[in-house]
């Protein structure tokens, strides 16, 4: 059911909030259940990826970072930890470790999923009837 409060909200604010914190765009739109679901799953995926990858796979000098940074707040918060663990010139990173590769995949997918969630928050406010619902009558 379309939330009437969505009408007064800005889709761009939802987009930016969704980037800063996964699910925040949905919370802004009044969808608290989905906000909690998205926040917990995307943040868990990000942290799990970092743990699986030995803590050295969220590095700004890698191409994967373009995907990882789409997760916004969690990615930016975990970047200094990863840089610290990677050491100078990434000397502590074991590039051949399959678990490192898997952890990187986890974090990159978390970023892409947050991109999807951000776009959903945007379209939910910009186009509230996109889910095949009938437009609501305007209040008299």
């Amino acid at each position: 059911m379309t939330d009437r409060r969505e009408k007064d909200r800005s889709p761009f604010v939802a987009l930016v909030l969704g980037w800063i914190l996964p699910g925040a765009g949905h919370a802004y739109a009044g969808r608290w259940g989905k906000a909690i679901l998205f926040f917990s799953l995307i943040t868990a995926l990000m942290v799990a990826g970092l743990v699986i990858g030995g803590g050295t796979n969220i590095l700004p000098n890698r191409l994967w970072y373009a995907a990882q940074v789409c997760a916004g707040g969690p990615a930016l918060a975990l970047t200094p930890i990863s840089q610290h663990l990677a050491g100078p010139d990434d000397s502590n990173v074991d590039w051949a470790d399959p678990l490192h590769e898997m952890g990187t995949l986890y974090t990159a997918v978390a970023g892409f999923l947050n991109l999807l969630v951000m776009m959903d928050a945007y379209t939910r406010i910009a186009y509230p009837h996109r889910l095949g619902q009938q437009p609501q009558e305007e209040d008299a």
Partner: protein
Amino acid sequence: MWLWDVVYGFVAHLFSPSNPLWLYYPLCAVVAVVYKATKVDEPKKIACQALHFFASVSLGMLGLALVFYIITLLL
């Protein structure tokens, strides 16, 4: 008999505890739930469609991997 041995060996390797491929399943499950939660609103529909997505992707990839494995053995 030869094909059965190949399939058995492949599946046994795929599901061995030492294979990090196990980690794809939680990833696929999270992708399924988040993707379907952006498509539908009702929790029951999200659960059903996410389960369908998870099963389709997992079995599809498994089948594809098996086919490619057999092709590489024949080449």
